[in-house]
């Protein structure tokens, strides 16, 4: 009886384990099937590097370069803001902060991670967007910069918590060795602990970026959604994700537009996949 129970439980767990992989594969196949259908109509090069995105004009122009650049610009801006602050915060928590402040900060970071993306977008819309408009004297505050700033908040919890783990994983003996040579606290952090934790910190940065590039709701609400090649960070941009979310509802199933949106999905999938794999490589490099 006990043996049968064990057997059933084991198999159930096996099914659970395989299910996740199975669904990922299914999603990927579906995505590829619908996305690749586009390339019977448009060549991949025209799709990736075409400069105009007018999916409902006649004939439709399906170049996603403006969208890719929009995504990259917003992501890059968010990384520039969130990486120094996030890594700095992780260093403070892991190395400097007294225990009470440490606990307080960790709770704060977790809360930040718990804010739904739409709320971040909403807050950005009513506070940050007018601010950006006034500060830079722009016709609109719905810009790549606004998106970058709000997305930086979303990347921060990922960066802080993973970087903090990486810093904690640095053996205490490195610290002692450095102090025993007369290094100051900061010299120890800068010359020993950060290099020792570098691969984990890189992974944290990659995962933070991965989080930003896949983010949809907040960017859609505050970046202005103009599908043009951005000349500056103070212009409205449209990202890959926002395009899918905004247009999928009105695209006719089986139309070029519909397939193009799926192809954008494939592009996003590939980007996220590359980011996650490289983060993984960084994480496992030092083990």
């Amino acid at each position, binding site marked *: 009886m006990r043996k049968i129970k064990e057997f059933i439980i084991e198999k159930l767990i096996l099914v659970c384990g395989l299910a996740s992989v199975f669904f990922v594969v299914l999603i990927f196949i579906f995505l590829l099937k619908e996305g690749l259908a586009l390339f019977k109509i448009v060549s991949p090069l025209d799709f990736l590097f075409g400069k105009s995105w007018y999916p409902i004009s006649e004939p439709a122009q399906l170049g996603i370069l403006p969208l890719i650049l929009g995504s990259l610009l917003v992501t890059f801006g968010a990384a520039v803001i969130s990486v120094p602050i996030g890594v700095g915060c992780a260093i403070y928590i892991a190395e400097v902060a007294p225990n009470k402040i440490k606990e307080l900060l960790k709770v704060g970071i977790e809360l930040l991670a718990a804010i739904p993306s739409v709320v971040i977008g909403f807050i950005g819309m009513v506070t940050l967007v007018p601010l950006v408009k006034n500060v830079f004297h722009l016709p609109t505050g719905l810009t790549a910069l606004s998106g970058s700033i709000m997305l930086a908040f979303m990347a921060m919890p990922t960066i802080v918590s993973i970087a903090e783990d990486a810093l904690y994983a640095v*053996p205490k*003996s*490195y610290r*002692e*060795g*450095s*102090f*025993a*040579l*007369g*290094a*100051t606290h900061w*010299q120890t952090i800068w*010359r*020993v602990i950060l*290099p*020792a934790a570098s691969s984990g910190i890189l992974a944290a940065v990659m995962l933070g970026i991965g989080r930003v590039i896949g983010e949809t709701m907040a960017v859609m609400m505050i970046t202005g959604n103009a599908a043009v090649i951005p000349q500056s960070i103070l212009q409205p941009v449209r990202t890959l994700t926002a395009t899918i979310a905004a247009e999928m509802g009105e695209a006719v199933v089986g139309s070029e537009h519909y397939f193009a949106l799926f192809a954008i999905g494939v592009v996003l999938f590939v980007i996220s996949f590359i980011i996650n794999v490289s983060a993984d490589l960084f994480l496992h490099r030092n083990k």
Partner: protein
Amino acid sequence: MAKIITKNLNLWYGEFQALKSVNASFREKAITAIIGPSGCGKSTLLRVFNRMNDFIEGFRITGEVVIEGKNIIDPTADLIDLRKKVGMVFQRPNPFPLSVYENIIFGLKIHSLVEGKNNYDEIVEQSLSSVLLWDDLKDKLNKSALSLSLEQKQRLCIARLIAVKPEVLLMDEPCSSLDPQATVRIEELMRELKNKYTIIIVTHNMQQAARVSDETGFMLLGELIEFLKTDIIFTAPRDKRTEDYITGRYG
């Protein structure tokens, strides 16, 4: 000549008193061993000399530790200067996850002792030669220090100290993670180094103390029971407790 003198040194971790009225004087350019069973306070005493206990919560200390006329446990003592002068080798070799070269020049950089690459090169060669690693590693200076053998790592840690020209080397069971052959070679190195440096070694290995040291202190439950020339303490200890320990009755 005494290099380090402790006067009525008491140390607490919270309620626990780890050192009880320790009075000792450590000779310059000699090897002094501190022996005793686990938990007797020998590592704590060693770590007083470069203030490595300061990080521990609930740490409190009274008395005096005089190195070259200065009381180093005074709150105003310059820790950075002290630790440059009094280096420490740890139980487990702890080279930094940097190249061999970077490990050696670490101390030079943080103390801004030397300018210019050529001068670095010279000191790296001198330091590695003085721990007899130069021939083995001269072609591997850019390799990660973590790829070395345990013995090489420990030698590198000693070389890293020597590079900043310390006066005292504190060694906290420096051979306990090494095999017997490596231990013999590190002990040889210690004998050579004592011509230039004052060495204090903590060890739970009595044979090691007998082999390398000139003087030996025996500690028990935070007290320094006896502090004598090594050949005397191992042949004619005055205190019954020392005799019991070195004859293996406990410990």
